[in-house]
C-alpha cells in the first residue's frame, strides 16, 4: 500500500527534504517581501516586528489591512489551484491538464455576471454587499462542474471525455456570460471583465476567513484521496488490478480538484493557469514523490501568485493590472516550451 512518505533511498530523501526546506524558506522571504513592497516601502525588520505584535499604528494598518490580505489571499488561492492542478495531472497522467479546462472558471464567471446583473438597481449600484460575490462565483463554478459530471455519466472516468464535456459546458457558460455582459450596463461588464482577468486586490479578511474555512475540509479530503494516486507511470488496467476502484476514484478526484479550484477562483478570479505550471515545476524539483510533490506545488503556486501580484504592484503602478495577466504572460512561453519537449507521458 502506498504511503505519503517518500520511498526513496535515504540520500535521495535528504536531497528532496533539503529542496523542500529551501522552497519553504524562499516562500517566507517572498511573503515578507510582498508585504514590504508597495506604494510605500516598509523595511523588512518593521514587517517582522509588526507580525510579531509590535510596530506603529500606521505601519500596522498598512501591513494588516492592506498588504497582508492580498498576500494571504494570493498564497491561499495559489496553493489551492496548484493542488488542484497536481491532482488533475496525476489522475489524467497528462501534464497538460489544468483546472481551467473543466469549465469551472467559466462557470464561476457566469455566476459573477449573473450576480451583478440581478443585484444591481437602476443607478448601477449593487443592492447587496459585494461580499456575496464570491458565493455567486462558487455557485456558478460548482454548477458547471456538477453539470459536467452529471451529463458525462459513466464516461466521466475517461479523461478526454470529461475534458470535452468541460469544453461544452464552458462554451455555454462563456456565451451566456457575454450576453449578460452586453445586455447590462457597461459598469457591470467592466467589473466582470476585471474579475475574469484575475485580481487579488479587493480581498478582505472576512473573505479570507471564508476561503480558509471552505478549504480546510476540502484539502483534507484531497490529501486523503491523494495517498491513493496511482504511480505516474501505471496504466489503467494495472491500476485496477492493484485494487483501485478506478472509475469512482477518478470521479472523486476530479470533483475535489474542481471544488478546490472553485473556492480559489471565487475569490480571486481567473488565475487557472497556475494550476498548469506549478505542478510541473514541482516535479522538476522534487521528482515523483507524492507528499513533497503536493507541498512543493502548493508552495510554488502560492509564490507565483504572490510574485505576480507583487510585480503588478511594483512595476505597473498606478495601473491596476490584474495578476492574471502576469501569470498569463509567463505562462505563454512556458506552455510552448513545455509542449515542444519530448513527450514522456501517455500523450
Amino acid at each position, binding site marked *: 500500500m502506498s504511503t505519503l512518505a517518500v520511498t526513496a533511498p535515504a540520500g535521495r530523501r535528504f536531497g528532496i527534504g533539503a529542496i523542500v526546506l529551501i522552497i519553504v524558506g524562499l516562500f517566507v522571504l517572498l511573503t515578507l517581501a510582498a508585504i514590504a513592497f508597495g506604494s510605500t516601502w516598509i523595511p523588512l525588520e518593521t514587517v517582522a516586528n509588526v507580525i510579531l505584535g509590535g510596530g506603529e499604528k500606521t505601519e500596522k494598518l498598512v501591513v494588516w489591512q492592506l498588504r497582508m490580505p492580498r498576500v494571504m489571499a494570493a498564497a491561499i488561492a495559489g496553493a489551492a489551484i496548484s493542488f488542484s492542478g497536481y491532482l488533475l495531472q496525476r489522475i489524467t497522467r*497528462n501534464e497538460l491538464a489544468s483546472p481551467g479546462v473543466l469549465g469551472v*472558471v467559466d462557470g464561476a464567471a457566469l455566476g459573477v455576471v449573473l450576480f451583478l446583473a440581478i443585484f444591481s438597481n437602476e443607478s448601477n449600484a449593487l443592492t447587496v454587499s459585494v461580499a456575496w460575490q464570491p458565493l455567486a462565483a462558487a455557485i456558478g463554478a460548482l454548477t458547471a462542474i456538477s453539470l459536467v459530471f452529471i451529463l458525462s455519466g459513466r464516461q466521466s472516468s475517461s479523461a478526454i471525455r470529461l475534458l470535452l*464535456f468541460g469544453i*461544452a459546458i464552458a462554451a455555454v457558460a462563456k*456565451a451566456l456570460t457575454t450576453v449578460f455582459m*452586453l445586455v447590462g450596463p457597461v459598469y457591470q461588464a467592466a467589473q466582470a471583465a476585471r474579475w475574469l*482577468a484575475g485580481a487579488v486586490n479587493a480581498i478582505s479578511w472576512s473573505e479570507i476567513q471564508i476561503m480558509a474555512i471552505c478549504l480546510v475540509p476540502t484539502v483534507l479530503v484531497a490529501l486523503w484521496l491523494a495517498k491513493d494516486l496511482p504511480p505516474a507511470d501505471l496504466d489503467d488496467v494495472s491500476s485496477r488490478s492493484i485494487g483501485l476502484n478506478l472509475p469512482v476514484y477518478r470521479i472523486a478526484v476530479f470533483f475535489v480538484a474542481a471544488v478546490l479550484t472553485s473556492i480559489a477562483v471565487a475569490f480571486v478570479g481567473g488565475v487557472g493557469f497556475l494550476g498548469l505550471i506549478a505542478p510541473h515545476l514541482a516535479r522538476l524539483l522534487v521528482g515523483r514523490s507524492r507528499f513533497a510533490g503536493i507541498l512543493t506545488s502548493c508552495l510554488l503556486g502560492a509564490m507565483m501568485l504572490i510574485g505576480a501580484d507583487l510585480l503588478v504592484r511594483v512595476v505597473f503602478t498606478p495601473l491596476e493590472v490584474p495578476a492574471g495577466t502576469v501569470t498569463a504572460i509567463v505562462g505563454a512561453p512556458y506552455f510552448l516550451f513545455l509542449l515542444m519537449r519530448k513527450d514522456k507521458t501517455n*500523450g
Partner: protein
Amino acid sequence: MVSTLAMSPQSQGLRLGPIQVYAGLILLLGLSMLMSLTLGYKIYSLDQVWMALFAHDGSEVAVVIAGLRLPRALIAPLAGAALGMAGVMVQTLSRNRIASPDTLGLNAGASLAVVVASIMFGVQSLAGLSLAAAFGAFVTAIVVFGVAASAGGLSPLKIVLVGVTFASLSHAFVEVLLTSNEAQLQQLLFWLSGAFVDRPIALFYNGLPVVIIGAVIGIALSRALDALQADDSTAAGLGVPLAAVRGLAFVAVALLTGAAVSMAGPVAFVGLVVPHAARRLVGLRHIHQLPAAALFGAVYATLADVAARFVIYPVEAPVGAITAVVGAIVLLVLLMRRAA
C-alpha cells in the same frame, strides 16, 4: 472500437444522392437569405426588399435593407461556409470528430490578434482588423498544430488539451487587454463573441477571394484527405505525401478560419457542428464533404443570424452566443451518445 456510429447493421446506403443534397441545401440557403433580408427589428415584405435592392430609391427601407441587411445576408453564409470547410479539414487532420477551429484555439488566437491590433496598435480600419484576424488564425494554426504534433504524436487528448489551453491563454490576454481599455469594452465584447451585424459589405468582398482560395486547396486535396482518414502507415503506403498534405491543409484551414474571423469575429462551434451534419448527409469522401459542409455552414450561420435578431428582441444578441449554445448542446449530445 465499435461505436454507435456504426451500430446499425443494415445497409446505411445514402438515401439521398449528393446531387439531391446539394440541391436541397441550395434551396434552403436561398430561403435563409431571403429571411435574413426580410426579418429583423422591422419586418419587410418581399417586394419591399426587391425594390430596395434593385430600384435604388433612397428610401429608409432601401437604406436598411441595402446598407444593413444585405451585408449580413452575404457575410453570414460566407463565414459559415468557410468555417464549415475548415471544420471538415481540421477533423480529418486530427482524426478527431470533436476537433474544430475553435477547440484548437484558432478563433481565440484570431480574436487576440484583433484585440491587440485594436488596443495596442490603435488599428481602427476594418481592413487592418481583418488582416490581424487572419494573421492571428494563421499563427495559432501553426503553433497549436505544430506543437501538438511534434512531441509524442498527434493524439486526440493532446490536441484537445493544447487547443483548450491555448484558447484560455488567449482569452486571458484578451480579458486583460479589455480591462485596460474600458471605453472600447462593450464594442469589442460584442465583436469578440462573433457577430454579423454592423459589418460593411467591403468585408464580404475582401473575404470572398480568401475563402475561395481555401476552398480550392481543400478540394484539390480531397483524395489525399480521404486517405488520411486511415492510419499513417496505410496512407503512406498509398503514396500520400503526408507532410506536404498536412502542411497544405493547414494553410487552407488558416485561410478559411482567418477569413471567417475577420468578417465576423470568432463564431463559436460552427466548425464543430457542420462537419457532422455534412458527413451524415453525403458520407466521408471529401469531394462531397467539403461542398456539403460549405452549404450547410452557410445555411446554419444565416439562420443563426436571423435567430439572433429575435432571441432577446428588441436587442440584438451576438450570433456567436447562439451558435455556442447550439453547438455546445450538439457536442453534449454527441458525447453522450458516444458518437465521437
